[in-house]
């Protein structure tokens, strides 16, 4: 009952706001969704008591039974889903509250809250799924909510383009996931998690012949699922949609494109740990993609001037950290970082939203500056978020990011060593771009005085969620420490680690230098940012001039968008026109119906001469025809 209320109350709120929003007015629609979300959040907090207990499912109804393809809708409750429900419902509630302030002047309030609550419902469905079809339902449900919210301000061409890009790029990932589901049904004869996990150990090392070749069964399955994860979690090479998704309202960026939806891929890998554990090849790919994305996004971050895009690349990068952790077999560490990241990244986005709100939708860092006195609460809380992100000792990110680096150091999995170094360099870059953001926005003197003059601190309805999240960013690390303690039994049966996977145990034995390396990286990065943007502000300019091609490469985000445009988007349209004009009209129609018609016409002109107008001529011709047909049948077909 608790979980049904938890999952379905946001749906109810969404339906009321969406269907009757016009009728009852913006205020009422807002109130209903926020209250419904509050109920869900309370349930999620209460639901934390199921952490570490025996997993169970809450049946909902039968979706479809076709032969062996049986889909029973049910909510799966275990440590993993309890943590995810807490993060999703909790943060979503705070963001609902914050949006009451942020969206106050928007004409589309009921629509906005309806979408936001629908998103939460779909995300809760995803994390509580008990089978792959239900997971897919949540997976695409959050995708469509993301599409709707990115395109919320639909009159802006850039928002519409970003929305379509997000949906279509995600569909590429979902294509992999769908094939993964098909492969799983082919191999396991079931789409239920329990059946799949139970059968996985026996299938370890077995081969399967599909696509005209032979593959390791579990590796193929795991990699197809991971393609879905790459799309949803904006990893290389399907990351291009996430920065553009910043076109949506900022609360959306905080909830969907930072704290919850984009972490679905990490959740998927952790949920399928009973499968990934048996396929070192797939794990190696996960590590490689994760570490590469972490580095790529961290390298692009310092070259961005839009406050939200900086944070977006940071999200991309941090998700890479999570995948790297999962890839080296430290699923618990990945989820731990997911948990802490949700607090400080939501905080950073909401803080950025507060700044944007104060500056009347100005997002360019170079038009900010000196805001610290105007907006003290935003300033203070954003520093807390930044410190948590860069891993300042004893903040949330300190515990989880350190754990990731330690895990990659001690792990014997493929690419673990490479991942360690990539992540360490990324940590320096993370501290650098985060410091840069804070110094540019809040420190120094206002670069555009008339903008800063009218800036003001946001109303309490926005600052209170900031404060709550700031507390989270400070203490979530301690609070979640038992997640990475192998002795605590925190995860119960929710995450499987094979007996020979001792990453969590070994993490405590790393050399002191490794232990302190992230902290060192943080100090270096922050110091550089201070040097570049406070101490010697002319330096960045000179550096960019000196390394023009490198700078361009980073500003253009490694040219991914340009390459995809030239490789996929434009050829698709060219091919489309060629097929239509060339084949459909030029070939099929020309030689098909139109050709037949022309030929018939030509033949008719000749046949006309045979038309004598005498009935007996026609009758004779028909008779001949019938005789011919019957004899053909008797002679050719019958025997």
């Amino acid at each position, binding site marked *: 009952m608790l979980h049904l209320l938890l999952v379905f109350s946001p749906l109810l709120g969404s339906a009321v706001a969406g269907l009757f929003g016009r009728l009852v007015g913006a205020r009422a629609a807002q109130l209903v969704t926020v209250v419904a979300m509050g109920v869900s959040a309370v349930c999620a907090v209460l639901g934390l008591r199921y952490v570490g207990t025996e997993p169970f499912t809450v049946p909902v109804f039968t979706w479809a*039974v*076709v*032969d062996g393809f049986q889909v029973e809708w049910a909510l799966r409750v275990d440590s993993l889903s309890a943590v995810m429900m807490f993060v999703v419902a909790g943060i979503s509630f705070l963001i609902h509250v914050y949006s009451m302030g942020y969206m106050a002047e928007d004409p589309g309030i009921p629509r906005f809250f309806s979408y936001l609550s629908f998103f939460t419902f779909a995300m809760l469905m995803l994390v509580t799924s008990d089978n792959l079809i239900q997971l*897919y339902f949540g997976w695409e449900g959050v995708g469509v909510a993301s599409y709707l919210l990115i395109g919320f301000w639909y009159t802006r061409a850039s928002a519409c383009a970003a929305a379509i890009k997000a949906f279509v790029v995600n569909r590429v990932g*979902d294509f992999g996931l769908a094939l993964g589901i098909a492969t799983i*049904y082919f191999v396991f004869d079931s789409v239920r998690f329990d059946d799949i996990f139970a059968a996985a150990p026996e299938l370890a090392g077995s081969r399967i012949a599909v696509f005209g070749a032979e593959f390791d069964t579990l590796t193929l399955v795991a990699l197809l699922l991971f393609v879905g994860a790459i799309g949803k979690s904006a990893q290389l090479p399907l990351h291009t949609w996430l920065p553009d998704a910043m076109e949506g309202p900022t609360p959306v960026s905080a909830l969907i494109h930072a704290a919850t939806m984009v972490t679905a891929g990490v959740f998927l890998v952790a949920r399928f740990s009973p499968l990934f554990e048996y396929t070192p090849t797939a794990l190696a790919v996960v590590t490689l993609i994760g570490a590469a994305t972490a580095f790529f996004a961290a390298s692009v971050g310092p070259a961005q001037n839009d406050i939200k895009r900086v944070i977006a690349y940071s999200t991309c990068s941090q998700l890479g950290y999570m995948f790297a952790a999962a890839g080296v077999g430290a699923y618990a560490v990945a989820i731990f970082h997911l948990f802490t990241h949700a607090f400080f990244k939501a905080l950073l986005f909401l803080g950025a939203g507060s700044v944007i709100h104060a500056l009347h939708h100005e997002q360019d860092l170079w038009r900010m500056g000196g805001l610290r006195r105007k907006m003290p609460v935003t300033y203070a809380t954003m520093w807390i978020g930044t410190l948590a992100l860069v891993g300042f000792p004893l903040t949330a990110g300190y515990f989880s990011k350190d754990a990731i680096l330690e895990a990659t150091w001690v792990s014997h999995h493929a690419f673990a060593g490479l991942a360690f170094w990539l992540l360490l360099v990324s940590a320096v870059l993370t501290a650098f771009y985060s410091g840069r953001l804070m110094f540019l926005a809040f420190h120094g003197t206002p670069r555009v005085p008339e903008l800063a003059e009218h800036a003001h601190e946001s109303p309490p309805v926005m600052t209170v969620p900031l404060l709550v999240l700031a507390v989270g960013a400070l203490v979530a690390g301690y609070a979640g420490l038992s997640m990475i303690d192998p002795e605590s039994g925190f995860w119960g049966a929710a995450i499987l680690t094979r007996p020979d996977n001792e990453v969590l145990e070994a993490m405590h034995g790393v050399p002191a230098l490794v232990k302190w390396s992230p902290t060192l990286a943080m100090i270096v990065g922050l110091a550089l940012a201070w040097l570049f943007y406070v101490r010697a502000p002319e330096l960045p300019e000179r550096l960019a001039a000196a390394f023009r091609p490198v700078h361009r490469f980073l500003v253009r985000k490694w040219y991914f968008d340009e390459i995809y445009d030239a490789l996929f988007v434009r050829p698709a349209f060219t091919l*489309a026109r060629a097929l239509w004009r060339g084949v459909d009209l030029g070939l099929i129609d020309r030689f098909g119906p139109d050709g037949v018609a022309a030929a018939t016409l030509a033949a008719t002109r000749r046949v006309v001469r045979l038309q004598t107008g005498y009935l007996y001529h026609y009758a004779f011709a028909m008779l001949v025809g019938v005789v011919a047909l019957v004899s053909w049948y008797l002679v050719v077909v019958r025997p």
Partner: protein
Amino acid sequence: MSDWPLLSLVTFLPLVGVAFILFIRGEPEVVAQNSRAVALWTALVTFLLSLLIWVNFDPAQPGFQLVEKSPWLAGLGINYYMGVDGISLWFVILSTLLTLVCIVDSWYSVTYRVKEYMIAFLLMDTLMVGVFCALDVVLFYVFFEGILIPMYLIIGVWGGPRRIYAAFKFFLYTLAGSVLFLVALIVMYIQTGTTEIPELMRAEFDPALQWWLWLALFASFAVKIPMWPFHTWLPDAHVEAPTAGSVLLAGILLKLGGYGFVRFSLPMLPDASLAFAPLVFALSVVAVIYTSLVALAQTDMKKLIAYSSVAHMGIVTIGLFSPNAPAITGGIAQMISHGFVSAALFMVVGVVYDRIHSRDIEAYGGLAERMPVYATVFMLMMLASVGLPGTSGFVGEILVIVGAFQVNAWVAALAATGMILGAAYMLYLYRRVIFGPLLKDSLKSIRDMRANEILAFAPLVVLVLFMGVYPQFFLEPITASVGEVLARLEPAAAQLAMR
């Protein structure tokens, strides 16, 4: 109740309405108004009666139910033979529903020859229900071909400027198929001495003969559904047809091809069906990718949706020719869903066409501002068309992909690319029509949907969501009947595997 000839009642009740309309006399305005009213009430009662078929239907039982049989052409041993199974059940109800929807939707928009228009739609109702209930091939063929007559009239009388070309193209394609279909039916009759479909479904034809029969049937069904490369009549027919004509064309007439495959080709010619499956797969995969791309290049809204239909039917044929329960059930589910979704999408085009008289995508933009209800309905149908979970479009698609993967992973993978391409062209269409700023003067005073339009969309909206959330309701009777088809295919499949 149970001894009433329910199927005949549903089939022929619309003709009573036709008779009534024929007797309406008076001022043109009064005639039009009365014709509308009679047609509406007739279609409504027919629809409600067709729901009684569902009430009296036992979903657990696989065979034909509510069977009626009486001598018809006694000399030839041909009976008037009607019945439904779990597959045709839904198509019967879909037919009566869409007829009703059509009449409500064209309440105000059709003003030319209203009397004849309503007669044509009621005739369509009779013929569509009849074709899905007929259990005798002669009866089936009469309905199957008879449907074309009112459809020609609908396109030819109420259609657009190039209607003659469209009708001719349709005719040319169908003609060859129809003739071969008839020849195949005659050969089957001569071979088995029966014209009863249930009997023929148990008949054992010589494999060599099966090949010829299969090809003859294929010629007819592949044009109807349509499969690539026999599809070029469809965009033209849709573009020229009036909105309600497109609704029935896409909603029901295309399904005759798929229904033909399930009812004739698969159970009667199982060996040939499996032998030709690779051909069907190849054409279907081409259809999915090719027509999705072509849809991307369209500038005409109706053409775009017509091409998307061809792509969706590609998924259907892949499902039908993969001999396992999820795939075939999925193919049928996809047909039902497409009946709701494509019908609604053509009505979506019709709504703005009635106001602006253009199907050109460029003529629109920013409609969300002035037409929020319209934008919402369009959004839902667009998402259903791209197969979003929670809408009806997802059910068939996932079942077909999962099922086809068992047979051939490449086919499943290539079919699944339709997910990506479909999303691209539909979202792109939606963006150009609904999103963006409202700049064009012609659109500044455009009105949102009228009451009759909302009423026409309402059942489709409900069904799209209901089928998406609780597909088991639809799948339960289908699976039972698909079991029958599979039972015929399995020995053939085993034989094929041995070779």
